[in-house]
């Protein structure tokens, strides 16, 4: 039983991990905690839905198309909105992303209404796979696998490619990176694009589990943000670990203690953890200038 619970915790955790990873990537490069992340993923999922339902495209084309759209949306957010802010401070940037979130929410509600839709994907939700004594539906298995695949590719991107090196340099010190010939603004924009793509994957994975409606990504977004903070916002591996911890603890708590308080236990844990470790479980402690 406990194995089964941990398994479903991992499934929830992998969605949180994707959102958390996306938020943490943009935060590291631009100090913006992007609250529109979830809604951007939701919008991209709707784009996939339109390609599948209205234009009858095969799934892989719709998938790639929506990821492409998500990338452009991320670039748009950075180039058209965040870059345009005059001498921004952290709070103003946060409110801008909140405004963008509300805007996207309204736009999707305007275009597609708030009724619940079904995103048809070629992976079954009812057929199960036996795995080391545990039963898991194909969809959940696919969720975990896709999440792990995506995280691995982000790792490879950051560790072994020139673009990843540029992203890391920009995150560490923008001025020094610029002096060394890195087009930092473009790199930050690309980071936003990549984050948006990760969010879109989370949305597409999320849609069959719940249903496709404008409220779909609000809770995963908050949980993902919380998970990122739990793991330490500036440590990507820590963020992913925080997300899995959150998913598993939440599921165990929901089964053994109370399902009613399942959704808030995460936040209580975080408040307690932050009280003892203000920069998260695995985050490096930040030092400030006086």
């Amino acid at each position, binding site marked *: 039983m406990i194995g089964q619970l941990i398994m479903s915790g991992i499934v929830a955790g992998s969605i949180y991990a994707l959102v958390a990873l996306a938020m943490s990537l943009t935060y590291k490069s631009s100090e913006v905690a992007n609250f529109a992340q979830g809604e951007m993923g939701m919008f991209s999922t709707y784009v996939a839905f339109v390609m599948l339902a209205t234009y009858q495209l095969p799934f892989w084309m719709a998938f790639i198309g929506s990821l492409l759209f998500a990338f452009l949306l991320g670039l748009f957010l950075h180039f058209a909105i965040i870059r345009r802010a*005059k001498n921004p401070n952290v709070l103003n940037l946060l409110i801008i992303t909140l*405004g963008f979130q509300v805007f996207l929410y309204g736009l999707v509600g305007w275009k597609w209404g708030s009724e619940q839709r079904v995103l048809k994907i070629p992976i079954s939700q009812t057929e199960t796979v036996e795995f080391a004594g545990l039963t898991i539906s194909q969809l959940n298995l696919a969720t975990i696998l896709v999440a792990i695949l995506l995280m691995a590719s982000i790792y490879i991107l950051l560790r072994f490619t020139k673009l990843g090196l540029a992203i890391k340099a920009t995150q560490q010190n923008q001025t020094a990176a610029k002096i060394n010939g890195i087009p930092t603004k473009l790199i930050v924009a690309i980071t936003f694009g990549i984050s948006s793509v990760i969010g879109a994957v989370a949305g597409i994975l999320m849609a069959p589990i719940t249903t496709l409606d404008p409220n779909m990504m609000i809770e995963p977004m*908050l949980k993902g943000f919380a998970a990122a903070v739990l793991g330490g916002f500036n440590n990507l591996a820590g963020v992913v670990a925080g997300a899995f911890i959150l998913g598993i603890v939440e599921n165990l708590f929901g089964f053994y203690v109370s399902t009613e308080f399942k959704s808030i236990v995460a936040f209580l844990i975080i408040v307690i953890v932050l009280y003892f470790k203000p920069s998260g479980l695995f985050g490096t402690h930040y030092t400030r200038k006086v």
Partner: protein
Amino acid sequence: MFYAMPNNVLLWNFRFFLKTFNLFALDKRISYFEDISLLKDNSVKRWSFLCLLLFGLVPFVLAEYQVFIANLVLVNVIIVLGLNVLIGNTGQISLGHGGFVAIGAYMTVILDEQWLPFLPSLILAGFVAALFGFILGIPALKLEGPYLAVATLGFGLAITTIIGRMPFFGGHMGIIPPPLKVLGMEMTSNTHFYYLCLSIALLMGVFARLLIRSKIGRAFSAIRDSDIAASSLGVNVVWYKTMSFAFSAFYAGVGGGIWAYVLGFISPGNFTPVLSILLLSMVVVGGSGSITGSILGATVITLLNLQGEKIQELPLIGPFFEWVSAHYMSISGLPNINFVFMGLTVILIILFEPLGLFGIWLRIKIYFKTWPF
């Protein structure tokens, strides 16, 4: 000379107007007391009096439903006044103010129903909210940025969930406040509520302004600018930070208490994180760290949130959007258009004026002060 010969009544009247109501006169402060006074000079005093008179006349002009909206605006003004002290003056961030509003609302209703008259229960509820603010302030001492945002967000969610599960608070069904009686007077219509809200908002506004002008307010600003520098100057950072949380929670509690009566019904669904986010955007859109900004921000965002769908009734713009909607977006009118406009307004205001609506007002003022240059 011009000043010597007012040979024209119209000109004389104009001069009288300029002298008595000139908000744009250059500052000629001569003592420290003028700097810390509640109202800067006589013209400001006269303007405040005029504004108050206008606010008092509002229920005679507006329809019943519009007065209801005005009440909601005033309630939000009260809450945002406190939140602005926390965000704009102390430099902390809170995504959990909906929780304090919920505490205030439920406490007021329950106390009023069973034990106390309305005003004492409102004040007591404010203090209970302040106590919770104090408690939240303790872990918040070490946190900043996104960490603080998540901690406060979690607090707000936890409060709403706990209230929603407890039968004592009416659970998900919510509770209905008893008929309102203030100092022996029965309050039945929205107009009565309006005067109640207005007087409480006025009191709270004056109090917030006095607080900002005092030693405490200067300690808050010092913490916002640099808490390490502040503590090295002898400001007790722990005390003032938690106090700032408690102060803003008090405002949220009082605002929540009145909100319950204005709405006539409260349930946990009223106090979601969306409320906290709305309050936060009111502060930033209005202009952080300013009382005028709080009022402007609360008004604009509340109206956009509640009346945003009225956009289709405007001339020219309304038909245009309906045309766009019918051709490209949706066949069923303009659903959710208020969210689109609210998001756009928030983004545009912050992009073009980081100080918010208060910044726009400042610019107008400076333009006229130095006119014609």
